[in-house]
């Protein structure tokens, strides 16, 4: 492709630019764009970069709070004040489409990208998590995807030395052919060390740092904004290859560089590469920027400006230095054996100018490009399938039969089962801060030299979101808050990744809108604003859209005490159930696993009740009363109790329990997924104190028995040896994966 290509309607269409958008581009430029400019507009105005389809909906989410230092959308990640001069920067981002095409590299570069977003803000990444969703493991292709994605995350995260401390793995047919890979990262900084991605001060030099540019990932941002089709299998060049070693060098060099104070602004070249980083930094600084693409280090020969500007080669960043401080910066680049090249400068004419061999290859006002992308009002229509699913009577599915067998079947369901097969492959201990390892409700990182710890959890029950997007969106936030609170933390803020189907379909857009409304209400009730996130639309496969999946990453703060874990500790400890169980079987894992039914009305979450429980858990933790705490979620009370018995390898124990059925059918008592419940244990000598505190807060509570023995016994309904529970739950994924033979070697 050369700069002299004539723009035809076909070329415009190939760039996913509508005729109206083309007219808008013409009016911005006052002329027709050349091919390079068209390419630049097409990637910046893709959904991935501009949020043109979701912007109006995203406005619903609360972004303000006393702890919010950098709000959603202002920078590459939100920043939250955790006191005493410390701040955390965190974000979750999708890498779904690249992972579908090339699971290993797709997932690996997803981790690389989110980490760069964090450390370019001046924060050292201290933890990663991820939310992964796949079809069912009986499909060889799904096993291949899981193997590749997990290996890719391990490859990148382990090498760069940021612990991958947890996350979720969820299996459902709707993700077949369109897996979701959402990567979360969290960084820590001193408040004064946070830097902005701004280009300021005319004459300041613009540096290119990191890997050379190749043709890989051409137009990845626009690629991520198209439906996945069988054709996409052939789109392989759009997948980039990551180099975690190089990124480790970049990470150390950038943090060292930022300490010197010679940096004006810095931004990762992620989606839309050089284009996005130049126009966004200039737009934020309200300046202009001028670069010469001939000076950009190139890995391949014969690249034209179009390709250099749109390439998504990994491990690159744009650094704007203070004029006169270049030598200082170069010393640091050399120390870390990094290639840096001065490619241009900041200007004051508010134009982004791209030069190539003395000629101007593109000239665009950056603010119009970065901030004035079209915003669409998409049509929202309630999906037809809801009429049927809402009316579904769960009893029509059938009888559960033997309840012991039913419980074991649920524990064997890969969505519920232990994710040890996955997290064993991640280095979750490097940096020696992980005080709660993966496998509890939330993972916890301590901050050395302080009395603070950060608890974090990523969650979304997409079946609920499918059956009732509003309640589902709400529950995703509330459940993540409960998980964090179970560790004794105060929920602070969320980041979200909105994974949906094609927004041009009004039913899909309705799902998006309702999910966001649910999230908004939950965030407002909890006082946890949204610090940032990402939107991934067009998650479709030939069979249709994925279930709506608004993944939530919740972050909470623990101060002055040890975190609480979810497993039972000592024989004789009292087991308490907080909350009330109601008949809420719609959308349950019970229906899905035992009867292959995904229907019914999912549980309703009462906001006041949910907030009360979160507060109560913190109050109990503050008094040191919680020996364990575990949220009741998928699989209901019986699964929560079983997990509490077995979730710590080598410390498994039984429990003898009697729960008041209150007129509920046995399967409802055991497997209903009523929200705002938790199973806690308290030392016997402190039981009265705990009960008084709970009563004072007015939360429903029942003492249901004691920890001990070698069996889990619930009323006359369940009696299973702990080793059977443990074997079933712990080996579920390995049994399915390893039965597949040596496919992991390929």
């Amino acid at each position, binding site marked *: 492709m050369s700069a002299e290509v004539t723009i035809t309607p076909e070329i415009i269409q190939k760039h996913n630019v509508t005729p109206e958008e083309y007219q808008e581009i013409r009016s911005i430029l006052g002329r027709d764009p050349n091919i390079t400019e068209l390419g630049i507009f097409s990637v910046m105005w893709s959904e991935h970069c501009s949020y043109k389809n979701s912007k109006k909906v995203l406005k619903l989410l609360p972004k303000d709070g006393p702890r919010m230092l950098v709000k959603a959308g202002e920078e590459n990640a939100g920043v939250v004040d955790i006191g005493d001069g410390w701040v955390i920067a965190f974000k979750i981002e999708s890498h779904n489409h690249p992972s579908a095409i090339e699971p290993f590299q797709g997932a690996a570069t997803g981790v690389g990208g989110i980490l760069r977003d964090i450390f370019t803000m001046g924060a050292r990444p201290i933890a990663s998590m991820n939310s992964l969703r796949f079809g069912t493991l009986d499909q060889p292709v799904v096993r291949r995807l899981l193997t590749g994605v997990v290996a890719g995350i391990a490859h990148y995260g382990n090498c760069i030395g940021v612990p991958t401390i947890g996350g979720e793995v969820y299996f459902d047919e709707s993700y077949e052919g369109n897996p979701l890979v959402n990567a979360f990262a969290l960084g820590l900084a001193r408040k004064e060390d946070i830097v902005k991605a701004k280009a300021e001060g005319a004459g300041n030099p613009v540096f290119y740092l990191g890997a050379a540019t190749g043709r890989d990932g051409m137009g990845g941002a626009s690629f991520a904004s198209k439906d996945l089709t069988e054709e996409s299998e052939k789109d392989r060049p759009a997948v980039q290859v990551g180099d975690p070693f190089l990124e480790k060098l970049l990470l150390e060099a950038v943090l060292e560089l930022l300490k010197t104070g010679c940096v004006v602004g810095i931004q990762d070249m992620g989606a839309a590469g050089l284009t996005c980083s130049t126009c966004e930094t200039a737009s934020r600084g309200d300046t202009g920027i001028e670069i010469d693409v001939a000076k950009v280090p190139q890995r391949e020969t014969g690249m034209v400006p179009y390709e250099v500007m749109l390439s998504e080669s990994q491990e690159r960043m744009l650094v704007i230095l203070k004029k006169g401080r270049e030598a200082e910066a170069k010393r640091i680049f050399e120390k870390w054996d990094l290639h840096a090249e001065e490619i241009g400068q900041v200007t004051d004419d508010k134009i982004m100018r791209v030069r190539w061999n003395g000629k101007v290859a593109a000239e665009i006002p950056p603010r119009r490009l970065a901030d004035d992308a079209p915003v669409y009002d998409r049509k929202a229509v309630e999906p037809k399938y809801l009429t049927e699913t809402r009316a579904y009577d769960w009893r029509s599915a059938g009888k559960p039969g033997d309840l012991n067998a039913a419980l074991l079947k649920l524990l064997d369901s890969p969505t519920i089962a232990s994710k040890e097969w996955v997290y064993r492959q991640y280095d979750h201990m490097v940096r020696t801060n992980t005080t709660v390892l993966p496998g509890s409700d939330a993972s916890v990182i301590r901050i050395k030299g302080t009395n603070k710890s950060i608890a974090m959890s990523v969650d979304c029950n997409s079946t609920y979101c499918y059956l009732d997007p509003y309640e589902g969106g709400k529950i995703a936030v509330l459940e993540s808050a409960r998980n964090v609170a179970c560790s004794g933390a105060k929920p602070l803020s969320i980041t979200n990744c909105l994974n949906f189907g094609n927004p041009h379909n009004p039913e899909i857009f309705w799902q998006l809108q309702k999910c966001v409304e649910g999230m908004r209400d939950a965030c407002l009730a909890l006082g946890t604003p949204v610090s940032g996130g990402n939107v991934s639309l067009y998650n479709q496969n030939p069979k249709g859209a994925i279930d709506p999946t608004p993944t939530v990453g919740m972050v909470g703060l623990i101060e002055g005490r040890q975190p609480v874990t979810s497993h039972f500790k000592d024989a004789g400890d009292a087991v308490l159930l907080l909350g009330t169980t109601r008949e809420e079987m719609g959308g349950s894992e019970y229906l899905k696993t035992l009867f292959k039914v995904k229907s019914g009305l999912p549980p309703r979450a009462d906001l006041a009740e949910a907030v009360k429980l979160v507060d109560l858990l913190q109050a109990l933790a503050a008094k040191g009363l919680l020996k364990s705490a575990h949220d009741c979620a998928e699989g209901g009370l019986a699964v929560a109790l079983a997990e509490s018995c077995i979730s710590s390898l080598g410390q498994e124990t039984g429990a003898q329990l009697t729960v008041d059925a209150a007129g509920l059918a046995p399967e409802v008592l055991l497997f209903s997924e009523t929200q705002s419940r938790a199973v806690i244990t308290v030392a016997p000598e402190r039981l009265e104190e705990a009960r008084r505190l709970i009563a004072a807060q007015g939360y429903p509570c029942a003492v249901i028995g004691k920890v001990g023995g070698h069996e889990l016994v619930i009323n006359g309904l369940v009696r299973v040896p702990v080793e059977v529970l443990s074997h079933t739950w712990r080996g579920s994924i390995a049994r399915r994966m390893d039965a597949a*033979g*040596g496919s992991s*070697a390929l």
Partner: protein
Amino acid sequence: MKAKVYVTLRKSVLDPQGKAVQHALETLGFGRSVKDVRIGKYIELELTGTDPAKAGEEVRVMCEKLLANTVIEDYRYEIVEPAREAAKAAR
């Protein structure tokens, strides 16, 4: 001039990756055709010299010092001259 270097695990060392691939080939129906699989590395060096004998000796030292770990790996190499390469391609 080019050097093509092949590094494989020594015969006496178990190659779990090779075993896994062999197993996978068996499940694909190639069990009868494949007796053993060894996975290794292929390294291509663009050389500046023109004397194949001298280059060969240098590449041998490179293998001994860095490219292979002779505790566990065997190596072999070929020096390919551009003319011969082109002739090969033409055939």
